[in-house]
Structures are given as structure tokens and as C-alpha cells.
């Protein structure tokens, strides 16, 4: 009746597992991403608890802690207010010129924070300290709250609001008690992004004269070159970031279930005469966040004033920026793809771990990554890789791989497991499944990841200043050199070049995001 010979090609298999090589690769990338940070922690502990404690409990550290927290809280609150208000006006009212306003309000996201600050300071040099920081940075970072909240408002089930209204809640009450809690996840996520950005920001605060942890780490690194102090401060920074990430998961929890199964457009609130007011408010925001900095830079381009420093090669800087951008984006995208494909669908927690571990650098400011890599290169690399292009590219890749990973993961999530199973039933080996089914379907995600890392690399300043090799200059470093010498006229073209180079990836990202939304329905 039955033959007892085993079937050809029979091996022990478990559903959903990727090729072991892929999983191994995922682990290698994840460890590679975490290693420098581990070493930095090691450096801090090697200093001995007493000297580290000395740094922790210095009055200056405490002052910096308070200052950093105060600034972060204030800016996050203002940015959240601006972001939620703008999102609500755009998505839920009949304000005119919605489409145009949406684009204009999002653009500041592509402009690096320090360029925004530069634009403002050129026109208003008296912007300084805490007030200046809160004012300028809120304008720079609110899009990161506005975007997710707007997307969330589009997707949530607005019928809850109708039910609340039918039960007698006033309009304002509905907004405060139903709408905003429903988009709580989006608000929390946006605030997290904003806060992490603020903790990592260096250039803006240098220009505004506000001392934070990151500016201090930088100063320690530059002036004292006391790795221990720098490493200890880094630990505080990372702990703060980790707390923020944890906080977001707690706060954002409730809102996730509110997504509607059918997307029925919510009715727009008719504003009547308030339309003008709403439009005016949004226009003011656009002008402040986008118009004024751009005009300021444009005015510098038109009349730059006398050259303070010998001019540098703009094209050369563009070349290097593009080069680093492409290399870092390629490395990060490939690494993130390896992690996503090698770990996301695995059944065991252990095999899925690389996906979570690789997200850690999100909470680590760029300067810390830069210091960590420099430290590793110095201590263990025999100084050979110190201040070299490959190390810098690795630094960018480590910093931005989490961004790439998030994009690729959500793209991969949308590929149902049944597709690869069906492909298997049709005779596709695992590598054929990858090649013919998975990769084509996550291609937009890969493209978005590339664009995002490219965009982030071109506009990166802090880590670049730490790790840039001799004789090399990127747009950001040349800009910074001119800026610190107060040669604003010479700095302006570099600022403008950064904005121009950042625009196409942003447009691409926006397009891909749109397409994904349409596909889903």
C-alpha cells in the first residue's frame, strides 16, 4: 500500500522560518548596531563608579538635566498643540486650500532643525536661551506631531463622535473627550519623535545659546576630551530617551483600537465666518515655520555680505553629501531588509529579537553613536578606522537603520503569510519566494526606507562633526564652519542646498505614503 521510502528532499522544517542564513544575517546586523553602544557603556563603567558618580551628581549635570527636561517638555507641549490643532483644522473642518496647506505645513519636516534656527536667527539675532529655543524649535518640529495625528484622524471611526453628540455632548466636549483620546496613539507617537529629536539636537541649541545635555557632551568631547564624562552624560541621555520610549507605549496604548474597518470620510465641520480665522492661523504657522526661514536664507543668497572666510567648494560638499547619503542609505536599507526578512515572521521570540534590538538606536542621540564608534575605532580598531569615511557611513547607518526598519517592517506586515505559502505550494523555494513575491511587494517600503535614510544623512550635523575625515566636508559641516564664524552670507548657499536636496526624498516619501493608504482600501 504505501512505500516506506522517505520523500525526496525531506528535512525538518517549521512554518514561517526563513533560511537560516537570513536569520544569522539579521542577528549580525542587530549586534553590529548595538555593539558600539555596548562599548560606550563599558567605557563609562571602566571609569569607575566613583568618578562616574562624580559626574552624575555634579551641580552642572543636575542643572543640565533640569534645563533639558524643561525645554523638552515646553517644546513638546507647544509642538503638540500646534500639530494637533493644525491636523484637526485640516482634517475635520472645511477650511479652504486644504491640499496646499497640508503640503506647506509638512515641509518644515524636511528642513533640518538647525537650518530653521539659522534662518530665524539671521533675522532675529536676539532669539536666545529658553524662550528662543521654545519658539524656534516648536516651529521646526510640530510636523512630526501633525502628520501622524492627521493620518489618524482620517482613519478613526468618527461614528463615536456622532454617538457622543447624539448623547448631548457639546462640540468642544466631543473634541476633547472623544476625538483627542481616539488619536492618543498618534499624539503620543508624534510627541515621542519630537522629544527624541530635541534630546539629540545640537546645532540649534548651540546657535540659540541654550545648554543641554547634548551640547555639553559635544563640548566635553571637543574641549576636555574626557571620554568618561562624555560617556557618563551619554548614559543619562540614553536613559532619558528610553524612559520616553517606554512612556509612549503606556500613554499610547488605548488609542490603537479605534481604527474603523471601513473608511468613511468624517463630515467636515462648517466653520462659517471662522473659516477666515482658521485659514489665517494656518497661514501664520506656514509663514513662521517655512516662509520666514526660507526668505531669510534667500535674502542671504541675494545679498550675502562680505566673505569672512575663504570660500569652500559648494559642489564638492554637495558631492560628499550625496555620496554619504547614498552609501548610508544603501547600507541601512540592506541591513534593515536583512533584519526584517530574517526575523519578522519567525515563530520563536529569540528569532524575532533582532527586529526589536535594532530599534534601540532610535533612542540614542547621534552624538552618542558617533562617540561610541570613535571610541571603538580608537580602542579596538587600532586607530585605523578613526575618522574615516567608512566609519562615518557606518555611523549614519547605525543611527538611521531603525527608521529604515520601521518602514520596511510595516511594508512586510502588509504581505500576508498566505502569499508565501501559496507560492511554496506552487513550487517556489524559499529564495524564489523572497525574490518573486516578497521583494516586489515590499519594494515601495524599501524605496521609502532608502529615501528616509538619505534625507536624514544629508541633513545630519552632530555625528558628522565628530567623525568626519580629514579633507572632507559635507553640506552640513561647511554650513557649520561658516555659521560658527558668523559668516551667514557664506553659510546660506549650503543651507539652501540642503533644503533643495532634501525635497525630492520628502516628496517621494509622501507619494509612497499616499499609495500605501490607497492600496489598503
Amino acid at each position, binding site marked *: 500500500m504505501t512505500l516506506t521510502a522517505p520523500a525526496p528532499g525531506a528535512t525538518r522544517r517549521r512554518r514561517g522560518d526563513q533560511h537560516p542564513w537570513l536569520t544569522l544575517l539579521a542577528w549580525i546586523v542587530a549586534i553590529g548596531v548595538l555593539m558600539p553602544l555596548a562599548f560606550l557603556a563599558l567605557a563609562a563603567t571602566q571609569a569607575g563608579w566613583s568618578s562616574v558618580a562624580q559626574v552624575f551628581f555634579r551641580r552642572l549635570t543636575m542643572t543640565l538635566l533640569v534645563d533639558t527636561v524643561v525645554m523638552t517638555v515646553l517644546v513638546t507641549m507647544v509642538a503638540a498643540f500646534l500639530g494637533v490643532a493644525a491636523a484637526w483644522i485640516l482634517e475635520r473642518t472645511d477650511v479652504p486650500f486644504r491640499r496646499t496647506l497640508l503640503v506647506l505645513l509638512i515641509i518644515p519636516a524636511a528642513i533640518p532643525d538647525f537650518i530653521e534656527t539659522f534662518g530665524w536667527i539671521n533675522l532675529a539675532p536676539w532669539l*536666545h536661551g529658553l524662550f528662543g529655543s521654545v519658539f524656534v524649535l516648536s516651529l521646526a518640529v510640530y510636523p512630526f506631531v501633525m502628520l501622524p495625528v492627521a493620518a489618524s484622524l482620517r482613519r478613526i471611526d468618527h461614528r463615536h463622535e456622532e454617538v457622543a453628540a447624539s448623547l448631548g455632548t457639546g462640540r468642544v466636549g466631543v473634541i476633547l473627550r472623544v476625538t483627542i483620546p481616539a488619536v492618543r496613539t498618534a499624539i503620543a507617537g508624534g510627541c515621542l519623535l519630537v522629544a527624541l529629536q530635541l534630546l539629540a539636537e545640537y546645532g540649534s541649541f548651540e546657535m540659540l545659546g541654550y545648554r543641554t545635555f547634548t551640547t555639553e557632551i559635544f563640548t566635553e568631547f571637543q574641549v576636555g576630551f574626557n571620554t568618561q564624562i562624555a560617556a557618563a552624560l551619554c548614559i543619562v541621555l540614553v536613559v532619558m530617551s528610553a524612559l520616553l520610549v517606554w512612556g509612549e507605549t503606556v500613554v499610547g496604548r488605548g488609542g490603537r483600537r479605534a481604527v474603523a474597518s471601513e473608511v468613511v470620510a468624517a463630515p467636515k465641520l462648517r466653520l462659517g465666518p471662522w473659516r477666515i480665522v482658521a485659514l489665517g492661523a494656518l497661514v501664520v504657522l506656514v509663514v513662521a515655520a517655512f516662509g520666514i526661514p526660507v526668505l531669510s536664507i534667500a535674502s542671504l543668497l541675494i545679498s550675502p555680505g562680505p566673505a569672512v*572666510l575663504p570660500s569652500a567648494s559648494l559642489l564638492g560638499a554637495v558631492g560628499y553629501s550625496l555620496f554619504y547619503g547614498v552609501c548610508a542609505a544603501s547600507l541601512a536599507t540592506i541591513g534593515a531588509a536583512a533584519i526584517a526578512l530574517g526575523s519578522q515572521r519567525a515563530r520563536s521570540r529569540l528569532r524575532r529579537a533582532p527586529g526589536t534590538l535594532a530599534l534601540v538606536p532610535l533612542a540614542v542621540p547621534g552624538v552618542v553613536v558617533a562617540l561610541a564608534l570613535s571610541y571603538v575605532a580608537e580602542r579596538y580598531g587600532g586607530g585605523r578606522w578613526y575618522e574615516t569615511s567608512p566609519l562615518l557611513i557606518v555611523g549614519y547607518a547605525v543611527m538611521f537603520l531603525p527608521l529604515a526598519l520601521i518602514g520596511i517592517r510595516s511594508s512586510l506586515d502588509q504581505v500576508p503569510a498566505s502569499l508565501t505559502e501559496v507560492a511554496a505550494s506552487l513550487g517556489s523555494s524559499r529564495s524564489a519566494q523572497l525574490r518573486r513575491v516578497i521583494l516586489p511587494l515590499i519594494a515601495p517600503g524599501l524605496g521609502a526606507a532608502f529615501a528616509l535614510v538619505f534625507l536624514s544623512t544629508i541633513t545630519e550635523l552632530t555625528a558628522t562633526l565628530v567623525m568626519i575625515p580629514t579633507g572632507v566636508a559635507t553640506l552640513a559641516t561647511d554650513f557649520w564652519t561658516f555659521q560658527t564664524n558668523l559668516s551667514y552670507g557664506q553659510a546660506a548657499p549650503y543651507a539652501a542646498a540642503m533644503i533643495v536636496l532634501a525635497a525630492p526624498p520628502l516628496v517621494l516619501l509622501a507619494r509612497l505614503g499616499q499609495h500605501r493608504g490607497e492600496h489598503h482600501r
Partner: protein
Amino acid sequence: MVLVASVAMLVASCSSSASSSKHLVVYSGQHPQTSAALVAAFERATGISVTVRSSDEAVLANQIKIEGSRSPADVFYAENSAPIESVASRGLLTTLPASILSRVPARVSSPKGYWVGVTARFSVMAYSTTHLKPSQLPSSVLELADPKWKGKIGIAPAETDFQPIVASVAKRYGTTRALHWLEGLKANAGSHIYPSNEELLAAIDRGGVDLGVINQYYWYRQAQQVGVRSMHSALATFAPGDPGFIESISGAGVLTASHDKAAAERFVAFLVSPQGQAIIARSSSFEYPLAAGISTPTGEPALSTLRPSPFTVAELGDGAIALALLQQAQLL
């Protein structure tokens, strides 16, 4: 045909002379206003191409220490003497020949001959002419810690230029008093802490702050940029011999790791040569050339009229004391 051939030969000879030896890497902590013209002139004069890595001198000093014998740098050109002295004390610089060292006074170069002083700069007060009259100015840098200056001064403690002043005060009055003085400065400055002397001067000039201590050349550079008439600030010196009125030296040396010491020495020699020093005098540097017989930069008081404190580079050493004091005062 002949023309093409001769041009080709010319190009070939140029490139061959360039490639046959010579390429230098200079780590420069000096402002580009000072170094750029010098480097360009050197390249023209000698045909040796130079790659400059410009960065903060403390960063560069540290980089040299880390890179050690593997460093690609040939020359270190520092803005202040402490960082280059710290590199020298690690044995990372070679001694310079007497022909180079004799071009400048002995007191401005490394006592052991590891580096040579190229330019001198002086720490002075910059004050807002709209807020202060010359009669209101302090005569000693110590007075700036007095409560009466609360909210009126600005400081740039992260500036490497500031460290020699701190070392000078510590040398004169001891570290305890220096620490108190720093703490007083910190209290008086409040939120007016700036990352660089450029920004400090800009703040003084627009009236955001009444007074600050900078190196004199910053003022002259800004005046050249915007025109003297647009400046709302002026310079003044402390009393002669006051520890706040010091001469700090910008020097250059050849690294032991240099792969072409001869060429590197030529570069350093060029810096203190009449040609090089004249370039400095004419440039937007506004630092004082140290070689004998070179004229003072336009608009600045002659070197002989200045009476700074006798604090020397030898006494400054590698500036470790200043760094420690700044950290103790929680300014760093």
C-alpha cells in the same frame, strides 16, 4: 602641434613635480582667515600640495594623540599654545631646527624647541559703547567677578582662547582664588554663555551684553566685515601686567609621524618666514606676526605699546590646570 606638445610637457612636468614628492597634511586649529592665504601661498611657492583638516584645536590635539604613529598629519598648527604643548609633551612632535626657531623671540616658542610661535594675540575687553563709558571699565579681570557686574558680562568658557586667561589668573593668585573668580564670573554671566568668541562679540555689539573678554583680533575682523562705523563696541585693555591681559601664542610644529619631515619643516619655516609673516600681516587675520621686522596689522596698536602680563607659554604649559578649574567651576 608643437604647441600641444609643449603644453603637454609643461603639464606633465608640473604634475610630476607635484607627484614626485610632495603632499602635506596639516591639522589646523587656526582660523581659516589666518591659514588659508598662507597655505595657498606655500603651495604656489613650493609646488607641494597641502590638505588642511580644519577643526577645533583640542579635537585635533586629541586626534593626534589617538592616531599616534599612524597619524596621516605632518604639521599641527594650533591656535593657542596649550594644545600643541600637550601634544609635544607626549613626544609626538620633533624638534625644529634652530634656523626656524631663531626667527621669533625665544619666549614665544616651545621651551624645548618642539614648536615655533607664529602669531601673537592679546586678551582684551570688548564692551558695548552704547551701554558703557570707558571710565566705567574695570582695570583688572578679577573685578568681573564682583556682584556689580551681575547680568552685564558674557563669557565663552568653551573657547580654547579662554583657558590661557584662567591659567594666568591661577598662576598669579592660586587655584582657590581662581576658582572663586570663575564661580563669580559664572554667576554674573547668568544665561549669557556663548559657544564662541564670535558670538560673544556679536552679542556685545548689538547690546545684548555689556562686556566680555576676547582676543583682540575678533573685533578687527568684524570691523573689517561690517565697517568700523557700524560697530557699536570698542576694545580696551586691562591694567598693564594684569593677569587678564595676556599674550597667547599660536604655534606650529612637525609631527614625528610625518612621512616627509623635510617638506613639513619647509611649511613651518614658511609660516615664520618674511614672506609668510607678511601675508599674515596683510590678511584678515589681525593677529600679530612674531618675526622681527614685520609691520603691525592695520589699525591695531603696535606690539611695543602693549604691556601684557609676563605670563609665558612655558608657564601655561599644556593648560591642564585651566581645564580642571573650568570643570570644577561647572563651566565645562
